[in-house]
């Protein structure tokens, strides 16, 4: 009897969710499927579309530039994972601050950078790296250290590290908000108990805060992994992959192949598919490695 009464609303619920489901399928899953489909085609995005089997993949494997870009991608990925640490440490320190006012002030400082458009940040850094009139070389000159002046983005052995250095001091706003939210949701009795037990600050970080924030760390880690593997915005704006191929990543290479004048959409789709698989595998590995309470 009870079930019969629930049934109509259950159906209505599905009916309301249906548009969202359809649009998700159309705009999320269909494009992915279509991209996978075209990875096996020679396709110029318009009138030429021919099935070529695994030719695109074979060509990618033989392509030196692709492998250079993969190497660069792993350096960016490793750096991004290591550079998650400052945000994490800053959040723990901030949470332990007794003064609510100070906490509030730091939170504002962490978050205020969020309102600056990413593109502006990139362009400011680009300007700072300029060898002739940028901030770094001018500052070195002012300090009498002109012998340490560099070509920064113009030096192929330095450009990649310049891009990694860019977010200094690497406090991620979203990451900080996630960690702070996580820390605030933990039952206060745990901290009281640790104080009674006389747990030191380092031990507290490793034995309490780190395990209790596993869920948040996992979320952040997946975002960082996927971002590093598939992202190329920074490289596109800052260096366009150069000098040489020193900052080229597979994502950027995909973009250049698809939207260059040769319009190799099929090849680019195949690069996209490879990236998708790499991101998926590494993310799954990471999820397995860090088992959160929820898992």
């Amino acid at each position: 009897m009870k079930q019969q009464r629930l049934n109509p609303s259950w159906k209505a619920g599905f009916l309301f969710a249906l548009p969202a489901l359809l649009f998700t399928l159309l705009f999320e899953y269909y494009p992915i499927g279509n991209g996978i489909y075209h990875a096996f085609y020679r396709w110029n995005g318009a009138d030429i579309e021919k099935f070529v089997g695994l030719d695109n993949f074979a060509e990618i494997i033989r392509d030196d530039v692709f492998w250079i870009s993969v190497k660069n991608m792993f350096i960016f990925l490793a750096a991004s994972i290591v550079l998650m640490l400052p945000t994490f440490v800053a959040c723990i320190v901030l949470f332990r601050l007794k003064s609510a006012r100070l906490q509030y002030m730091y939170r504002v400082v962490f978050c205020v950078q969020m309102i600056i458009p990413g593109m502006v940040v990139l362009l400011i850094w680009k300007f700072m790296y300029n060898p002739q009139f940028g901030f770094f070389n001018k500052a070195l000159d002012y300090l009498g250290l002109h012998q340490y002046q560099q070509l920064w983005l113009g030096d192929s052995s330095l450009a990649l590290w310049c891009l990694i250095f860019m977010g200094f001091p690497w406090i991620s706003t979203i990451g900080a908000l996630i960690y702070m939210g996580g820390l605030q949701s933990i039952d206060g009795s745990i901290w009281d108990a640790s104080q009674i037990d006389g747990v030191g600050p380092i031990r507290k970080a490793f034995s309490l805060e780190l395990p209790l924030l596993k869920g948040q760390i996992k979320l952040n880690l997946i975002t960082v992994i996927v971002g590093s593997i598939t992202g190329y915005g920074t490289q596109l704006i800052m260096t366009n992959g150069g000098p040489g191929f020193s900052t080229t990543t597979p994502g950027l290479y995909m973009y250049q192949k698809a939207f260059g004048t040769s319009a190799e959409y099929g090849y680019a789709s195949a690069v996209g598919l490879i990236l998708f698989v790499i991101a998926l595998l590494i993310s799954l590995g990471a999820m397995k490695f860090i088992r959160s309470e929820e898992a």
Partner: protein
Amino acid sequence: MHNNFNQNKGDIIEMRNKKTRVSAYTSLGLFLAFAVAASGCSKANDQASSSSGAAPGSAAAPQDKTIELKMISWQGQNQAYWNAYDEAIKDYMALHPNVKIEHIFQPLANDGYNKLLDTQFVAHKAPDLIDLQGANIGKYTDQDYIIPLDPYLGQPTAYSDGTNWVDTFIGGDSGFSNLKTTNKYGAISFVPVDNGPGIAENRPFYYNKDLLAKAGVTAMPQTWNEFIEVLKKVKAAGITPIAADNNRWVKWITSWTSDQFVDGYLNQYFEDQFKDARALDDAKRNLAVLTGKVDKTNPVVNAEYDLLKEFSQYWQDGWAGVDDLGAQQLFLYQQAAFIVDGNWNYNFYKENIHDFEWGIMPFPLITKETTPYAAEGFPMGDNKLGAEGWALNKDLEKDPDKLKAAVDFLQYLTSKDAQQKFVQTAMTISSIVGVEAPEELKPFIVSDKATLSFPAKFLLFEGEVNGVALSQQFYMNKMSKEEFLSKMQESVMNKALKDAKAQLDQETGIPRTIASVEKDLADLKASSASQVLIDDKQSTLDFLKLKLELYQKYAGDTAH
């Protein structure tokens, strides 16, 4: 006018500010773009044939029918150009009250212009008249998104006093021959409204008079040797000689120096029947490398890169990390003595330079003093990198009246009277015979030395991704010449092989295009279309057959 490479600082920053942070999921987002494009793909396939039977000619659309045309350009970021178009549009609408023209501005920054068109074409929502530049003209012609204009160009217009439209352009038909190499039909699919065929093949150098005086330079160089001497003096005075950038500059300078090497060089490698077909020049360049006729040991290739390598020591330190905007800043901040730029930026420099004297110098002539392979001339006809002009959306063929109005407007815009007014407002150079250029812009015009029909050009340069990146490494001494040339050869070879396979493919290559053109021709004949159309279609067919023969002869074995 080729502002794609030259947006002023404010516009770029404004555009970039508007862009949201490129998300971590951009890659997956691309799948979406691909899919959207794919959904339009089948439609494009259905329509993949060359121009239909719409009658060419100069007749305007019926006066009693209201026609609305949309035109898109990036000229909003250059006020003088925008004003010049505004005037021309107003004048035209006054003459033809039934035609309403809307001019849409889309900035070029971060490739926004081209990406918008890419998606609009797929969705068949692109504007009727489209300002296009460089390789995109060939790309959209190949994709059957824009109309080959040869039938119209081969006839007089309402404004040309009986002269065929094409002959109103400086250099006439032969001026367009380089551009014809960029599409599968060997067709002209745009008309220039300024610059264009026969003029301004080489960008001039803007120079800082104060810095040159400081370096003791008293006379401006005419030849490449004299130019290098000046650069040496400037460098010795502790001044950076050239403001370079990491992309545009590399392509430009590769093109404009190699454009002055041995005339007719490639002809020696091909049979006579392919000799005079300039529209096959690109194909011959690829095939020469593919068949091993031109390789890394080629003396002209070596001479071209030796010249550039020597020249690169005069570019600013760290140029490979600087874009064209950064190079402009360097020149404006008096940190470099020379910069290459186009006449479209004349007003930009005029408005922004206040604290030093400056001038414009034509691109130096490479003489035999520099290299025995110098042709001692500039190429006739337009340079592909410099090509820019208006194309017509192929969807216009569905509405013949609208198509007529669009063609008529382009014919008006390129008429002598309209052009005389246009160049004075826009501060540019007309591509139309008899239109006087503004005095300040005369150094931009190469005239008596434009004598080369088939200059060697860059024989070993892959213009997509690898060419620029490898050049950067070579010029910065991160790669030896041997390694550089080997990698460049490999890269060009791969590209040439891919090209040959694509051209010879029965389903997607030249054979398919021939079948499509043959069908069009049969339809035209069956519908008793005008002889001009039939002749034009026939010449397209002849060209395609010649092109197919070339590929079969020189790549038939390799590509299979």
